[in-house]
């Protein structure tokens, strides 16, 4: 494909940019107050629809003219529903956890009476003398947003919003260049694939460009399936065009005329948003036939995955598009040589494609300056679990785990202490506090025994049982194993059974050694990445939390008090208040009885260890105790005859 140096391209793109500018001006010049509501999946799950309705009702009730605008997710999922109110005369103000009640209050007090309700706000989005800025908080100031820069600030269903922010200019520029120039820029930027393995993106594209084949294809891998990971979903829902632009650039560079977006069907909103984005881009001539008046065509479509985790593995993904059962195939040949329908195929993650337009816009040197030598650019994590400010975080590579967890995300809530962080999903590992100073980059995390993965990060506090965590992840991998190869199919089932036995207090001498041996064989012997990495949660937890395993096997004790078979609740009679019945109704199995002196006891034979009584017991008494092993609970006799 030759570069198109005709004026047509410039004219067409300038016209589009002008249209976008007029669209943006029509919003900024509108004197009415503007209310931006985050309506990605996280916002909707937290009630953004109800909040929007409350705004609409309050506005019409008070007869106030204001514009409600729908935006994506800013990444601050802990604060959803997030609403930015731009009331003329004030800076734009970000409000968090805006319930319908708060929405009504904001309309009345802020829009009608001019009181910005300081108690509800998170901060101002612009410099001003009145309200502290959000940029003063670590969560905002220590992030480096490349991929998610405008996520949450634009309407994902309005292409002109993206273009007005400079979108598609990298694609327009690309079409003026030779494909190998683009590949060189991507290569020199040091960008590595964000799907987990970290293969150099420019090199992959070069291999695909040089590969011989009729119908080269570019595939977006948005089959995000790690428990607790939602980076790709959020990006697709909040700024789909940046991803589409990256795909189009890749297709031009490698000589593909076909692109497929493989999005899992469990992401209905992402599918809807991205489908609409494709339509809009086609209407403007930014995708489809003769892009921006050049001879470059890109046929782009969405393929919905049907709920198999293993289809995130690229060869299984290809099988699934071809209508086969999603099972990983032997590599080589790699997809860049022989992929979809036997043709050279580039498969990249959402974050990889979304990184490309900024790289081409600001240049490879700009990108290299972010991050570390071996891992340039930014890392995007969905930080979840026992963490104060859960959500999507984009940081320069090389930031230590400690900074991410304690400074940017606010640390562990409820006065608990940090125990471990699980990085890299079911293929990753659990790192203890000793590793908090590990820099977040591909190589350091792998060295520590975890892996970058695609960006799932689960923070765990002291109340977490590491054996139970390992069991959870093995349960996941065993259910999601495609069943093809011996080690993964049968080996992980043995691991799971062993872990289940240990958490039930039925661990035996030699179990830990068997776990270790089997894990090593599964790692060394499995066919695909899923099997090879499946034992990681076991291996790392055995390495860093071996004492917990030993306590389970030898003492039948769960140090964190999580494994139900190894714990018991009892009521401390010293603390229990005579005549108080608060816990009785909370018990679902009527295990709580009244003692002779009108205090309470728990019948251990009935107790299902749900912990409801702990919550029900008034804080001033705090009489319910949890112990492990269960024998440590003192036996309180149920009176033979009770008559109260």
């Amino acid at each position, binding site marked *: 494909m030759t570069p198109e140096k005709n004026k047509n391209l410039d004219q067409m793109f300038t016209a589009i940019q002008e249209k976008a500018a007029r669209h943006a001006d029509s919003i900024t010049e509108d004197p009415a107050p503007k209310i931006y509501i985050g309506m990605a999946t996280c916002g909707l799950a937290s009630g953004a629809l109800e909040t929007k309705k409350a705004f609409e009702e309050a506005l019409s009730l008070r007869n106030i003219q204001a514009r409600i605008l729908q935006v994506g997710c800013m990444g601050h999922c802990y604060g959803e529903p997030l609403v930015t109110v731009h009331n003329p005369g004030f800076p734009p103000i970000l409000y968090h956890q805006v319930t319908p009640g708060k929405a009504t209050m904001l309309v009345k007090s802020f829009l009608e009476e001019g009181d910005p309700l300081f108690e509800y706000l998170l901060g101002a989005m612009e410099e001003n003398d009145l309200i502290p800025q959000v940029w003063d908080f670590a969560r905002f100031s220590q992030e480096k947003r490349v991929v998610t820069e405008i996520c949450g600030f634009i309407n994902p269903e309005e292409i002109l919003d993206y273009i007005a922010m400079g979108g598609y200019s990298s694609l327009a520029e690309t079409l003026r260049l030779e494909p190998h120039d683009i590949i060189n820029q991507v290569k020199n930027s040091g960008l590595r694939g964000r799907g987990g393995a970290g293969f150099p993106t420019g090199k992959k594209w070069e291999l695909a460009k040089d590969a011989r084949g009729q119908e080269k294809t570019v595939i977006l891998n948005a089959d995000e399936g790690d428990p607790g990971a939602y980076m790709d979903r959020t990006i697709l829902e909040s700024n789909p065009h940046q991803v589409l632009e990256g795909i189009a650039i890749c297709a031009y560079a490698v000589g593909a005329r076909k692109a497929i977006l493989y999005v899992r069907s469990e992401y209905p909103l992402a599918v809807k948003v991205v489908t609409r984005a494709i339509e809009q881009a086609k209407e403007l001539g930014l995708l489809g036939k003769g892009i921006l008046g050049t001879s470059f065509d890109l046929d782009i479509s969405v393929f919905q995955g049907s709920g198999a985790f293993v289809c995130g593995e690229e060869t299984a993904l290809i099988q699934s598009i071809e209508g086969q059962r999603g099972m990983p195939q*032997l590599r080589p040949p790699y997809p860049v040589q022989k992929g979809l329908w036997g043709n050279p195929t580039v498969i990249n993650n959402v974050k990889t494609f979304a990184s490309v337009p900024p790289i081409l816009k600001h240049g490879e040197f700009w990108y290299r300056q972010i991050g570390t030598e071996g891992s340039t650019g930014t890392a995007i994590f969905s930080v979840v679990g026992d963490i104060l400010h859960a959500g999507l975080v984009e940081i320069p590579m090389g930031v230590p785990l400690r900074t991410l967890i304690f400074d940017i995300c606010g640390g562990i809530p409820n006065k608990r202490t940090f125990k471990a962080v699980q990085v890299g999903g079911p293929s990753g590992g659990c790192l203890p506090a000793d590793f908090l100073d590990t820099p977040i980059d591909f190589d350091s995390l792998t060295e520590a025994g975890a892996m970058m993965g695609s960006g799932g990060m689960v923070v765990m506090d002291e109340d977490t049982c590491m054996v139970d965590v390992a069991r959870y992840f093995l349960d996941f991998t065993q259910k999601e194993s495609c069943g093809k190869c011996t080690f993964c199919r049968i*080996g992980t089932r043995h691991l799971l059974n062993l872990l289940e036995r240990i958490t039930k207090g039925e661990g035996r001498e030699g179990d830990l050694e068997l776990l270790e041996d089997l894990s090593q064989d599964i790692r060394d*012997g499995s066919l695909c990445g899923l099997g090879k990495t499946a034992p990681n949660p076991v291996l790392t937890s055995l390495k860093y939390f071996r004492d917990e395993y030993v306590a389970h096997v030898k003492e039948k004790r769960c140090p964190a008090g999580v494994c139900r078979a190894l714990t018991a609740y009892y009521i401390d009679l010293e603390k229990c208040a005579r005549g108080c019945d608060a816990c009785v109704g909370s018990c679902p199995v009527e295990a709580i009885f009244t003692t002779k002196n009108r205090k309470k006891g728990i019948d251990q034979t009935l107790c299902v260890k749900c912990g409801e009584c702990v919550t029900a017991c008034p804080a001033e008494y705090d009489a319910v105790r949890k112990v492990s092993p269960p024998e440590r609970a003192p036996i309180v006799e149920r009176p033979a005859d009770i008559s109260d």
Partner: protein
Amino acid sequence: MAKILIDKKEIEAKEGANLLQVCLKNGFYIPNLCHLEGMDSPPASCRLCFVEIEEEDGPVTSCSVTVRAGLKVTTDTPPVRRLQRSALKLLLSAHDVDCARCPANKKCGLQTIARFLKVGLKPKQLEQLRKETEGMEDHPFLRYDPNRCVLCGRCLQVCHGKQGQPFLTFAKRGFDTVIASYGEKDLSNTTYQEFTACAQACPVAALGPKND
């Protein structure tokens, strides 16, 4: 032709040939279950045919290696044997070892490999696992025992090859993966002859004629 070394013995083989095939042809036995002669893309799923190749880290499955000049192959290193024994024990832990009543007795793939690797047919370390599912009860001709099946996929390979449209497929996930009949074709109009190849490809008699 390319010269390669297998266990220090010089062998001549075609450049690009399948290494497992070359080893077997030249009298170097390597345990294998999922391999069928002449396959263009090996499934590499049974994880038994490990060998070590000089200048490569750790054991690799020989079915996925193609011959190139100067290849130095060792078939019996301790890491190779460890993985082979481990894979075999895993397969045996999910296999209903009842040889006396099994039609495959004395010609069974698992027996051969166990004898070669000096592994007992009932390894003690691992607990016995069984699938609860029954397979293909409604099939007019084939009998299928999920707890004999080693899921090597040879029946599928043959099925795909001879019929074009497959009659059989993998079904379910994880440990519960089984072989199931599949396809739009009305099986009532078929004869057992169409399935003999599939059944004969089975190394452990998990598939066979219904009255077997």
